[in-house]
């Protein structure tokens, strides 16, 4: 397929996935704020850290307060990572690749955008944010469902899924690295106060129920890290994402993306045959730094191999 169109499809799904991930993060921050311990500056800082938008926020805001952060991440036109902009970019990319997606997919993403513009005319605050978050997740699910159910399994489909998993891998790694920054004892069950933080983290990647089912009870940082890095059956773990990326790349015809194919297969092997002990041996923050760099390299190789016009 055309390189330019592959680029559009890849970014369409990256932006949509980014919108969904951002909403999950906001959702838990907002939930924590409703609990007795409340959301503290650390949580809000973590949000800016994970999304890499701290300087953008600080340039337009003096104080760090939940209502402002909410607005910044949802409706702010000046914030390139706001949900508003993510959905706009997703829709723009879909528009440019209109001929390669099905009518149902286009209708789904276009009406999401039209609805988004309408929603932006209304005020958003702590009282109504949940409904908005649910809506974004629902629209993301709907689009994925329309894609899964209607599009031909050609290269177009592969580039759409590639965008999803590269974005998701990046997001999972960022969340882990921010949240695990200052942990000293990974095996000690967390305190009651911290429990909220940890369950919030699990919820932010939609993993709370899965965690309960897998590990029962006790929340320890090591188990949370293991789940998000190594679980072979959890669709947001890094292992899962890399498995997906590597096997998608295998399906794309031609030799253009050899580097991406090799790098993703290598990283997948490391995760597939890796263990928490290895992680703790080098230190979790260092391990995660390495992972993020590798994921960025894979993204780069995909861009060079397939998406940029020769």
């Amino acid at each position, binding site marked *: 397929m055309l390189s330019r169109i592959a680029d559009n499809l890849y970014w369409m799904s990256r932006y949509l996935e980014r919108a969904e991930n951002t909403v999950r993060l906001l959702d838990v921050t907002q939930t924590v704020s409703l609990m007795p311990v409340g959301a503290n500056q650390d949580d809000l800082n973590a949000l800016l850290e994970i999304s890499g938008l701290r300087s953008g926020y600080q340039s337009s805001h003096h104080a760090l307060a939940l209502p402002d952060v909410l607005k910044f991440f949802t409706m702010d036109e000046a914030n390139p990572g706001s949900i508003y902009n993510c959905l706009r970019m997703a829709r723009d990319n879909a528009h440019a690749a209109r001929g390669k997606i099905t009518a149902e997919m286009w209708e789904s993403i276009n*009406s999401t955008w039209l609805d988004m513009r309408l929603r932006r005319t209304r005020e958003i605050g702590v009282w109504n944010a949940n409904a908005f978050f649910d809506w974004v997740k629902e629209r993301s699910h709907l689009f994925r469902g329309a894609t899964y159910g209607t599009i031909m399994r050609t*290269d177009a489909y592969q580039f759409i899924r590639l965008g999803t998993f590269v974005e998701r891998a990046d997001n999972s790694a960022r969340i882990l690295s921010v949240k695990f920054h200052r942990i000293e004892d990974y095996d000690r069950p967390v305190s009651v106060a911290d429990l909220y933080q940890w369950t919030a983290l699990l919820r932010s990647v939609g993993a709370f129920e899965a965690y309960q089912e897998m590990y029962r009870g006790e929340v320890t940082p090591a188990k949370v890290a293991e789940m998000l890095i190594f679980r072979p059956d959890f669709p947001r773990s890094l292992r899962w994402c890399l498995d997906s990326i590597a096997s998608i790349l295998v399906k794309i015809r031609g030799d253009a993306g050899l580097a991406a194919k090799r790098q993703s297969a290598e990283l997948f092997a490391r995760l597939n045959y890796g263990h928490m002990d290895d992680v703790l041996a080098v230190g979790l923050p260092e391990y995660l730094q390495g992972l993020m760099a590798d994921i960025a390299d894979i993204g780069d190789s995909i861009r060079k191999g397939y998406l940029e016009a020769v």
Partner: protein
Amino acid sequence: MKVRPPGPGHYDEMLLAGNGIREHYRDYGQWLESCDEAWLAQRRQEADLLFHRVGITFTVYGDEQGAERLIPFDALPRIIPAQEWQVLERGLAQRVQALNHFLHDIYHEQHILREGVIPSEQVFTNTQYQLAMQGLDLPHDIYTHIAGIDVIRNNDGRFHVLEDNLRCPSGVSYMLQNRIMMMRLFPELFARYPVAPVAHYPSLLLDTLRHATPVDNPCVVVLTPGRYNSAYYEHAFLAQQMGVELVEGVDLLVKNEHVYMRTTAGLQQVDVIYRRIDDDFLDPLAFRADSSLGVPGLLSVYRKGNVVLANAMGTGIADDKSIYPYVPDMVRFYLSEEPVLENVHTWQCRRPDDLSYVLDNLHELVVKETHGAGGYGMLIGPKATQAEIEEFRARLKAAPHEYIAQPTLSLSSCPTFVEEGVAPRHIDLRPFVLCGRETRIVPGGLTRVALRDGSLVVNSSQGGGTKDTWVLEEVTPC
């Protein structure tokens, strides 16, 4: 709902003078009468919502916000009986055939000029004459693979050709989408009427494009200026319906005297380009150097015969308004037939006699720029202010050869659902003619409607709307 009658002396597609109803509209009229206004309004709203969701929009140039708008869709069909369509079909095929002959002749021996049927200076001084096409042989001698011919019905009830569009005629996607919409909104009507289908247009188009090259199993692409073009939706729609790539200039490159597109699996050779970009923008090396829409070096590949452009370069010389008056003569000259479809009488302002007549009668004529399109840059005498008339008078005197004039036609009207209910509004018709192995026309076309009362301007860029066009099939008794 009640249907408001047209003014006296007007030809209405549905109503006869004196309250009768035309035979082919009888069933529909009964059905319409039984419809409730609120119900019909609800249907129309549903259509708007669907069009928006599907993204069938167009961009209006000069609109500050660059907003995408819907072309207003009218839920009342324009119905053409079988016998009338047969005449139209014959006339259109004949006309486009003659135009293709003309283009081949102009870019080769120029018999028609040598025999004085058309004055040479009309061709050679015309900016649409493309020197790069001179002497170039095209497969099957086809220049205009896709033509859109604008036809109107005058108040004598006869069809006249108003304009030929031989460059990149647009609007066919509305023809297709309007039908899908009508079948969705009013399925019961399609059970009552034998409406000829149009949905096979994309497959006929693909067949036409594949036939345009001698290459076996050719790679066909649609070339668009991009998503900010007013007709981008149509480009994407047609590419998808045909199952071919929709490319932009940046996707193509010239190498080893062939055109390739950049794909995720490397370079792939392109054989036929259905281009929706004007000649001037196709190749920055040959034409406008500032064009970022085209492909550098495309012209040289084209001249070597290694790629086919549909339509060919230089077709503008045949649909120019200054050449238009000669089309009936082309039919006689090349086909030795009498034209089935008439032209609208046209005064050529470059002729002194015609000019003085036009200047004396500006208040009742329509004056058009010979190179204009889209309803821009024209004067409608009866609707114009004195100041506008004086402005055109000055422009005419300064450059008479740039203008033609035509009588103010009373375009036929068709009942249309507007604010005051169902009332007559003026319409035209653009059928699409495909020239390949044979000349083919899907039964129908794009009916455009001027939504303002009394207005004659149907262009979508000027606030016109569209209707579904029903060509009835002859019902043969079993």
